[in-house]
């Protein structure tokens, strides 16, 4: 799976939890999931569990701590898939 494909899937997974639709239109690697997209912090766990299902990976709590931006999420998934 290419990086762009992972990125597109990540955005698709995050989309239902986003409160700032404008920020979603300009989403990039450095878009902060909590601060820019205004995702509720409690929902971040659901998002990461969706990554697990979608990409068939297992994410530990400590791995998830590093996920602040969309780019961080893509990087984590790439690492888990490799």
């Amino acid at each position, binding site marked *: 799976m290419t990086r762009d494909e992972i990125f597109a899937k990540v955005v698709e997974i995050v989309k239902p939890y986003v409160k700032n639709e404008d920020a979603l239109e300009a989403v990039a690697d450095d878009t902060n999931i*909590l601060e820019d997209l205004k995702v509720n912090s*409690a929902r971040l*766990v659901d998002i990461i569990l969706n990554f697990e299902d979608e990409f068939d990976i297992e994410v530990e709590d400590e791995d*998830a701590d590093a996920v602040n931006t969309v780019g961080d999420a893509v990087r984590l998934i790439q690492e888990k898939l490799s």
Partner: protein
Amino acid sequence: MTRLPFRTRAAHVFQREVGRLFSIVWVLPIVFILRVVMGYHVRDVAQVRTRYRALVKESDRPLLICPNHLTMMDSAVIAWALGGSWWYLFHYSRIPWNLPEYNNYASRWPTRVGAWLTKCIPVIRGGRREDVSRVIKRVQHLLSKGETALIFPEARRSRSGRVESDSVAHAVGRILTSVPGCRPLCVYLRGDRQDTWSTVPARGDSFYIDFELIKPQSDHRGMRRSRDFSQQIVDRLIGMEEEYFARR
């Protein structure tokens, strides 16, 4: 479980020991405020304390208190109801560490000092994950050292006035899965005049309190396991709330 840096561990010891040294200066006044100034009353308090003390005595495994959340005084009322002021002076480790929202008290230095003295670790809800994670690791460390901690599994005061099943803080499960032997104690507290959430309970209110140790189970690993644990705690609190309203 990640080992904390020496400086953080030393800071905990310093905070705990200074708090212990001054405990008579803050434990008794807090209880005075709750009992006399606010006029609060806990129903069957002797029975509650006997049960709690027996529970503490039967095992020295770490205890994570997981209550429902309706007012900003819940943690103080729960600690008072379970232990009682004099008992805490001789069982200081049983005064639970709390995680108050930093912005609720950080604007004035007396409240900052007060929070530090009374075993509080500030947290910024919805803050950067690394910062929240650092706080969780501090709680994990304290529990592993035999301290008691109190975390609200709903993360915030319930806006509906009832335990909210869709408002689950992942941190509770994360702590439980990472601290060997840690026991979650579900606590349900409600004042008779507490219809919904508020800053403080009504003056002269009478509190119902019940608690139960549970053993969360999960077939999963990682974050899913933590999530299952948190959910089971909130589900049990919902059950305790139903029992409360059925008896009322």
